[in-house]
């Protein structure tokens, strides 16, 4: 499907009026352009260092529509490589994770070590002679990689700003998400294997709306709310949502930044750390563990405000395609215009006792994933909205992003945030779409950073 010749992208994304053409979500040519304009430039989440704890460990991941391998080399350095042989393009790794001395292409035996160096090819002497320089043919590696408190991020663009600059004012919230429950930096590990499944929708449906679509919950999650285990879980005092109950002195606000990041963040209305409230009655020892952790965190926070972000039920997006909170990472990979691969990485305190880790893992399995309590609800909407928006007539219509237009104001406590004061707003989605348009129109990072030139 060709992009309509008489319509520019700018005419399709009218942030001032809050109207966005459905074509942005269903057009094949726009999807192709997104891979070049966004996913080849932006900093992307790749994984967590705990997925590759030992030298030689590797884990498959994706950057946009392309597969990558995250590898810890024999010298303990983490790399991210495109999963394609430099000879004829075959995947050099067809496993999801493991430990390897080398990655051997099964086609012509081009073989790479864990630093990505080409160390051998089949029949090298006869086929290539003595002057062939293997050093010129390594695995293709990302231009920049950042281990940010245990989380691994990368970009293909050598001219992209540093990762901290890319995050802008939301950087402390990202750091906070990777702290253990006692407030220690890089205090988490990720359960393996991760959850993965494909959904028949465009990646922007979940990635742009997940953290900040407050009006969907009451209807979409109606049935699970009735069981008092859903995101709104307040029925009859039967609050069983383990994390939502943790920090009562807070509000949830829609927060947006000019960087395209933002979402539905927990903003704390008082300093310090609230008293712990038991929520783990089915997991012996868990409340004792988390209560002790809370006391340690209270000592660190003191009389400061907790960092706004993903604790206490908040979650937020880092542009373009990952959602973070304190216990899960939701990674939305574009596969095709109407195919998204949905990944879930669940974090837990790396020093927690086994029974606590098991309890968190079981909770994650009940609550999330395709067979869990809530994500199946969300998927129904995204999966049907895509085909219902793709028809020739349907594409002529716009999506309205009108909630809380004009209500956002600079947050006085957190410079760089604009906030709305409640969750029934699409300010963060408008911010993400504005940034999307900037990426799609930019010729280089010179047009994208500093933001809002």
């Amino acid at each position: 499907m060709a992009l309509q010749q008489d319509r520019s992208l700018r005419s399709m994304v009218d942030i001032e009026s809050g109207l966005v053409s459905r074509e942005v979500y269903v057009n094949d040519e726009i999807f192709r352009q997104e891979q070049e304009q966004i996913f080849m430039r932006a900093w992307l989440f790749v994984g967590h260092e705990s997925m590759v704890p030992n030298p030689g460990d590797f884990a498959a991941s994706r950057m946009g529509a392309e597969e990558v391998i995250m590898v810890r080399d024999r010298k303990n350095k983490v790399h991210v490589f495109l999963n394609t042989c430099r000879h004829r393009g075959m995947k050099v790794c067809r496993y999801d994770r493991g430990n390897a001395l080398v990655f051997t292409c099964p086609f012509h035996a081009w073989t790479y070590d864990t630093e990505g160096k080409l160390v051998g090819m089949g029949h090298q002497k006869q086929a290539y002679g003595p002057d062939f320089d293997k050093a010129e043919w390594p695995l293709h590696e990302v231009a920049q990689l950042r281990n940010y408190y245990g989380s691994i991020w990368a970009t293909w663009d050598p001219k992209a700003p540093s990762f901290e600059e890319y995050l802008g004012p939301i950087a402390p919230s990202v750091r906070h998400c990777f702290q253990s429950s006692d407030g220690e930096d890089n205090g988490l590990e990720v359960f393996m294997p991760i959850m993965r499944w494909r959904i028949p929708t465009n990646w922007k449906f979940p990635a742009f709306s997940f953290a900040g679509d407050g009006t969907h919950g009451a209807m979409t999650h109606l049935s699970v709310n009735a069981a008092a285990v859903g995101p709104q879980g307040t029925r009859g005092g039967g609050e069983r949502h383990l994390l939502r109950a943790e920090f009562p002195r807070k509000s949830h606000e829609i927060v947006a930044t000019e960087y395209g990041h933002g979402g539905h963040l927990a903003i704390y209305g008082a300093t310090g750390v609230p008293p712990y409230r038991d929520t783990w009655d089915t997991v012996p020892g868990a409340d004792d563990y988390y209560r002790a952790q809370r006391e340690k965190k209270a000592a660190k926070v003191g009389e400061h405000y907790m960092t706004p972000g993903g604790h206490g039920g908040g979650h937020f997006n880092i542009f373009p395609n990952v959602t973070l909170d304190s216990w899960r990472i939701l990674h939305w990979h574009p596969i095709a215009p109407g195919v998204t691969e949905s990944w879930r990485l669940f974090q837990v305190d790396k020093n927690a006792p086994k029974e606590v880790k098991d309890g968190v893992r079981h909770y994650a399995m009940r609550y999330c994933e395709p067979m869990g309590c809530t994500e199946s609800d969300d998927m129904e909407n995204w999966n049907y909205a895509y085909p219902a928006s793709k028809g020739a007539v349907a594409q002529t219509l716009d999506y309205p992003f009108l909630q809380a237009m004009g209500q956002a104001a600079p947050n006085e406590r957190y410079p760089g945030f604009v906030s709305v004061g409640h969750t029934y707003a699409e300010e963060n989605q408008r911010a993400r779409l504005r940034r999307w348009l900037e990426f799609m129109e930019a010729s280089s990072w010179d047009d994208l950073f500093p933001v809002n030139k």
Partner: protein
Amino acid sequence: MGTKLLLKDQSIVEIIGNPGDGGWVQVRYLETQADDAAVGDEEWVFYPDVQDFAQEM
């Protein structure tokens, strides 16, 4: 590890790494007359370049 191999270019090498893929072993050269290798070099060797196990000396 440590198994000695005779390569087709008559070099003697010992295995120092084996990815277990059936195709490659990482070796250290113990004896060689080859132009592109020296004693002590560490290299990866593809199975068609191996002639046999080396005889114990």
